[in-house]
Structures are given as structure tokens and as C-alpha cells.
């Protein structure tokens, strides 16, 4: 066995009544890309946050290269060689790319109170080039960059310190193939240099392809660490959920079936940005998958179809001819939408489960102008039981739920409103396998009831697994259309994306 980089012994961490980690022993060796996998709330991020100095642990010891290691803050951990790239946005807006890379290190370029910006830009360019990024200008304001490029800037900032251990925490879900490749290359290079990478992801394929070993966590307990040879998808899934996953993951048939009736139509839609004359028809009982790179315009299609944004030209119409101009019009006609920014755009995060679920259904609920608690409870409890939302009470704030359960709340809102059309923008982002399976099965049963679904996703696997018809988008236009069949693979689709 090669040298040990990081050792955590018997780490215990509790948040109030929740036991996030219950005595975890974890060792990372030099030259490893160690995958870390587990359902939401299994303790992956908590473990990394403790190692990264974001918070302390209740008991247990940390060792870095054999020396006792007590990081007091994220900055302190970075100085000691432990860097993290997190899921959320970590760049600071309002300043330039180079300022972001060297934030807190301005002294390096300061002489006599004046900053040598030229030297800073040059250094920033070098850091970016080392990552393999040549198209980001260090002088550009950070806000002119898209999400992906900002993430790359963040990675550059973390890499400038040449850390010995790098944590990649669910970063790749939000990146396109190019961004992912940059991250993978970086991981491989670090491993070759004898450093260590901890790679957190919900994407099993990604982990199987790039990790050299895999640790599975469940409910704050380290279940097992698998060597490359033992990394089997079925084994990993059952280790994660603690039982065999029974039944189908995606739908099992390969029969593209849907009605004749068009229930939603986008015709020659221009939105002034991505979409230039885009058309789409959704049929009754159809699951229409839309895939592409994150900037291809597919998210805009979802927003337009629900009336959040108005097309400059063209129209969005329902089957009965109603033009959708506002989300309120769409909702009234039983259309539901789940935003990819769930916490910001779909949920009222500090409000309760009940308040979130009943929101579009208030009018149906009210009798003589009043909403009675009894009817309220009935609607919400029905959804809670249907979707098995794990909450202590329907009056619990959604803030305290895990990501998967939050997403179930949003689903419950639209099923509670008896939606006939669902527009789902990345509905399984940041959701663990157990909940994912439940959602796929739910979509399938909704389809069978004759509901129509638009499934917009950056995960090709789920689009292939679920859709009756697949639309691949590129630069704001459809670049390929496929009917459901068993011989569509991700590789076929990727060719149409880039």
C-alpha cells in the first residue's frame, strides 16, 4: 500500500438530534481518486467539511500525512494542502477573473502599497492554462462568464496553492462534457503526481469510469471501501440503500407510445437569446426528453413553455388553443413546472411542507372563500403518503428536509394540483438513487394515466431510460430526434450535441 495522505479516526458529528457521522474511519492514500458515494444525508459532505475545516467534529482524530491535523477554518485547511471545490457557486461577483483567483493573496503582487495588476493577470493566465483552459480572459469581469467558466475559475483558485488533497463535491453535475473533462484530467494528473482526490458524485457511471476506489456511506456510517475490481453497479447500489433495489430503475419497455392529440405546442419561438425559431409538440401520454449541453437552450424551452418568459416571436399554445403568457395561465390549465434551481425558484424554503404543497391548489381548496385546515391537511397528507415524503410533520419547514425530499415536495405540489402536463427541468439533480428510482416510476405511472411530461435533463442516461421521444438540442435548435428504442446509446446522442 502506498503512503497514507489523510486518516480520519472514529469521527462523530451530530447536528442537533441528527447523527451525521457515527464513528467514521476513513483513509486516503497517495495516488488515489477515491469516489465517495451515498444517499442524500449519508454524511459525504459532512465528512469532507470536517476535513476541510468548515466545522469541527464532536470526537475523533484527523491525521494529515501522519501528523495530527486540526484545521480551524477553510483557509487554514487550504494552507495545509486541503482544497475543496463545492457544488454551489463560489466565485465573488462584481470583480474580475484574476481577482477571484487570487482573492486573499493580493499581497503576492503588491509592492509599496501598489498592486502590479499586469503580473497578476499573467499569473492568472498561467494557472488557467495549466488547467487546460485557454479561452477565459483573466481581465474579464467574472459576471460575464457562464456558470461553467466560473466553476473553472474556482478550480483554478483552488489549484494555485497546489494542494495535496482535492475534494470535488458534486461539481460535475452542473458542467458540460468539456468542463467535466477538465475536472477528470485534473484528477488524473493529481493522482499521477502522488496526490489524492476525493470525488463526491451521485453519478455512478462517472465514478465507475474515473475513480480508483470507492467508499460507500450510509446514514453516517462507512459501509465499505471497494477496490477498482469490486466496483460493480449492482453491488454499489445495494450497499448505498442497504437493501436490494427492487423493481425497475427506469421504465422497462421499449415501446414509444403516446396519443395523437397535441397538448402543448411551441411554434417558431424566438426568445432573443438562445432560441431562433424553435418548434415542439407534446402529445397526450408522452414523455418527451430534451437533452443537450447546458447552454443549448433547453432550459429556456421549459421556461417558455410554462410562461415564465415570453417569446419575442412565435407562440406557446395548449391543445385547446389557449396561449400561455404567464405561469398563472399555465397553472390554471393544469400545467406544472419544476425549476432546475429548486431552492431558489420552486420552494419557499423557510415555509412549511404544507404551505409549499398547497400553493397552486388554494382556489380548489377554498370553500366560500376560506381554506379550512381540514381540507388543507387532507390534500397535503395525500401527497405525503403518495410520494412517501419523509417529514416529522407537514408543518415542518422544508429547509430541514434532505434534497430528495424537497424535490418530492415540489412534485407533490403539482400532482396535488392535478396537473395534466408536467415540465421537469433537471428533476433528479442532486437527488439520491432511491428517490430517483421513485421519481422515474412516478413519471411512468403518470404517463400511463395519460399525463404528458417534458423531461429536460443534462443526464443522457435518464433521458434514454425514460423518454418516448428524445429531442437533442444544439445552439438553440433541435439537432436530432429519436424514438424510444433499445439501441440508442449516449454516444449516439452526444454526436448531435456537439
Amino acid at each position, binding site marked *: 500500500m502506498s503512503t497514507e495522505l489523510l486518516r480520519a479516526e472514529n469521527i462523530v458529528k451530530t447536528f442537533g438530534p441528527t447523527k451525521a457521522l457515527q464513528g467514521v474511519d476513513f483513509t486516503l492514500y497517495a495516488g488515489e481518486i477515491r469516489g465517495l458515494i451515498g444517499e442524500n444525508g449519508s454524511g459525504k459532505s459532512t465528512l469532507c467539511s470536517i476535513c476541510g475545516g468548515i466545522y469541527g467534529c464532536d470526537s475523533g482524530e484527523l491525521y494529515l500525512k501522519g501528523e495530527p491535523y486540526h484545521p480551524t477554518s477553510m483557509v487554514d485547511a487550504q494552507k495545509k494542502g486541503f482544497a475543496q471545490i463545492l457544488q454551489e457557486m463560489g466565485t465573488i461577483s462584481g470583480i474580475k477573473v484574476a481577482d477571484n483567483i487570487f482573492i486573499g493573496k493580493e499581497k503576492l503582487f503588491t509592492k509599496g502599497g501598489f498592486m502590479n495588476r499586469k503580473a497578476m493577470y499573467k499569473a492568472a493566465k498561467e494557472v488557467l492554462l495549466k488547467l487546460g483552459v485557454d479561452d477565459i480572459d483573466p481581465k474579464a469581469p467574472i459576471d460575464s462568464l457562464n456558470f461553467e467558466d466560473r466553476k473553472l475559475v474556482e478550480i483554478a483558485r483552488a489549484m494555485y496553492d497546489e494542494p495535496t488533497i482535492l475534494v470535488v463535491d458534486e461539481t460535475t453535475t452542473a458542467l458540460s462534457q468539456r468542463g467535466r473533462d477538465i475536472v477528470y484530467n485534473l484528477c488524473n494528473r493529481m493522482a499521477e503526481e502522488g496526490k489524492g482526490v476525493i470525488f463526491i458524485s451521485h453519478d455512478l457511471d462517472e465514478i465507475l469510469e474515473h475513480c480508483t476506489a470507492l467508499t460507500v456511506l450510509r446514514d453516517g456510517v462507512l459501509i465499505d471501501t471497494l477496490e477498482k475490481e469490486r466496483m460493480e453497479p449492482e453491488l454499489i447500489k445495494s450497499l448505498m440503500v442497504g437493501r436490494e433495489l427492487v423493481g425497475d430503475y427506469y421504465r422497462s419497455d421499449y415501446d414509444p407510445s403516446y396519443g395523437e392529440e397535441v397538448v402543448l405546442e411551441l411554434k417558431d419561438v424566438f426568445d432573443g437569446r438562445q432560441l431562433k425559431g424553435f418548434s415542439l409538440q407534446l402529445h397526450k401520454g408522452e414523455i418527451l426528453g430534451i437533452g443537450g449541453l447546458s447552454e443549448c437552450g433547453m432550459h429556456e424551452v421549459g421556461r417558455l413553455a410554462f410562461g*415564465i418568459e415570453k417569446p419575442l416571436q412565435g407562440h406557446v399554445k395548449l391543445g385547446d388553443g389557449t396561449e400561455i403568457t404567464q405561469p398563472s395561465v399555465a397553472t390554471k390549465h393544469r400545467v406544472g413546472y419544476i425549476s432546475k434551481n429548486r431552492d431558489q*425558484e420552486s*420552494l*419557499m424554503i423557510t*415555509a412549511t411542507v404544507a404551505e409549499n404543497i398547497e400553493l*397552486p391548489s388554494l382556489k380548489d381548496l377554498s370553500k366560500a372563500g376560506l381554506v379550512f385546515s381540514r381540507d388543507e391537511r387532507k390534500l397535503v397528507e395525500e401527497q405525503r403518503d403518495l410520494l412517501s415524503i419523509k417529514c416529522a410533520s407537514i408543518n415542518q419547514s422544508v429547509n430541514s428536509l434532505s434534497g430528495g425530499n424537497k424535490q418530492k415536495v415540489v412534485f407533490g405540489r403539482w400532482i396535488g394540483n392535478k396537473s395534466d402536463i408536467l415540465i421537469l427541468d433537471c428533476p433528479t439533480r442532486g437527488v439520491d438513487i432511491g428517490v430517483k428510482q421513485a421519481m422515474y416510476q412516478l413519471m411512468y405511472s403518470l404517463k400511463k394515466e395519460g399525463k404528458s411530461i417534458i423531461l429536460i435533463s443534462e443526464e443522457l442516461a435518464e433521458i434514454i431510460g425514460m423518454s418516448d421521444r428524445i429531442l437533442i438540442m444544439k445552439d438553440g435548435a433541435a439537432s436530432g430526434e429519436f424514438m424510444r428504442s433499445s439501441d440508442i446509446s449516449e454516444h449516439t446522442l452526444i454526436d448531435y450535441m456537439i
Partner: protein
Amino acid sequence: MQLIKRNIRNILPFVGLILVVVVLAIVSRGRIFAKGNLNNILDQSYTIVILSIGCSFLYAHGGFDLAVGGIFGLSMMSSGMLLLKAGFSAWLVLPLCIIVSIICYMIMGVVTVKLNLPAFITSLCMQFITRGIVTTISNGNISLPREIKAADNWVIKVIVLVVIIVVSYLLMSKTPLGKRNRAIGENAVAARQSGIEIDKTRLLAYLICAILVGIAAFFTMASTRMVATLDGSGYEMDVIIAIVLGGMSLNGGMRSSVRAPIIGAVIVVLLVNGLVIIGVPSKWSDFVVGIVFLIVILFTYKTNRKGLLAR
């Protein structure tokens, strides 16, 4: 104990109210509740309670109202002058007050909502505009005819207040409108994406507020039987403090309630009145009020996870 802990935000304003009553009663040796002063307190509370309930509908959706004092003053002055000039029945003043208030609030509401301007700014402008109109149209203070005293009857006033409280409670907490209004304060983007018509809901909140302000203006005229050019000035601040002391976030949201402005308004009136009675020199009273509010707010702030203004 667990129950108390969970409901601390709901209980604290009550504790505060009792504390204020007890402390003021002891320090003033009961003088604060002497008959003459008690009348004073009741009259003042009556006005501030109704105004605060009205404004809480605006704060609930994330709005702001700096114009309430000005609109209240303009309602009184314009309808009072019309009464003197035209000499109609005193009871007609009530609909007049409400109409003036609705006109002002609807102008303000439409500008705020349709042009998507911050309510803080539009209501500040409306405050100046209404104050300006009052000083222009009036030649100083006016006295009202005796008949209007007929409305200064505590039986009527209590019935009106109870109706207002019950209706407002139902509107705020139990109707789709109230729930939507609060949802907008909680997260306007999520509210819109749940099919709520943001503009319409916000304008209805302005309408509710306007009606209540009109009613408050009428009963204040009835009890004082005169209108001064400066009537209502500073009330916008009393309302803000009342809402905060009542335990509601100024950002609004789902936890907004009608209870908060009611309790808060009573505390405000008691404090301001009490300081005078216990003999704090008048030149110091603003200073003391400021300090007392600061202390109370720091106290409530800690229990208010969402914060008062931070977002």
C-alpha cells in the same frame, strides 16, 4: 417546555406587552391607568391598531409603507373640509375617508407594482405628496361639527374593531388571497412559478390597506372633532415599530399575521404615552423611546431566525 420553546416567537410579544403594562403601572404608581389617561391610550391605540393591521398586508408581501401617515392625514383633512363646505351628514365622512384613501393607495400601488419600483421609494414619495396636498389645501387646523361625535361611541367602535380584526385575520390567514400575499413575501419567484398572479395579489393588498386606513381616519376625526395639518405624521414609523415589536418580519412571508401588528401597536402606544406620564422630560422622550425600542428589537431579533430586514 418544548412547547414554549417552539412557540417562543408567538409568546414573546405577549410577554413584552405584559411586561410593559406592569413596569409602567409600577413606575407611574398607577397613574398611567387613571381614567383620563386611559381614554387617551384607548383612542390612540384604536387608530394605530387599525393602521398597523392595514399596513401588515403590505409588509406581508414584502412591501413597505411610508405613506400611511400622509394618506391618513389627507383623508381626514380633505373629507373634513368637504364636510364643512358642503354641510352634509357626518356619517358620509366615512365613505369619503375611505374613497380618498383608496385613490391614494391605488395610485401608489399601481405605480409600485406595474413599474416594478421599490415600495420604499414610492411610498416615501407618496408621503411627501400627501403632506404637500394637506398643507396646500388647508388653512391651518379645522374644527368639525358636533354631529360627528355620534360616531365616537365605544359600543360602535368596539363592534367595528372586532369585525375588522376577525375579517383581517380570515383574510390574512385563511383565504387564498392572504396565503398568496404571504407567499409572495416568502419567495416571489417561487410564488409566480406556482401560478400566483403577483400584480393582482399585491394590488388587492393595497386595497385592503386603503380601506382600513380610511376607517381609522374617520373614527379619529370623530373622537378628536378636529383635524390638524400635522395629523398622522410619524404614524408610518409607529406602524413599522408595531409590526416589529409584534414579532413579524418586516420582510413579510408566510409567518406574517394579524396578531403581530395588534399587540405591537398597543405596546407602542403604551410606551410613548407611558414615558410622558412617568415624567420623562419631553425633550428626552424621543431619545428614550429610541433606546427602549432598540433594546426590545435586539431581544426579539435573536428569536427571529429570518431576521428583520436582512435578506
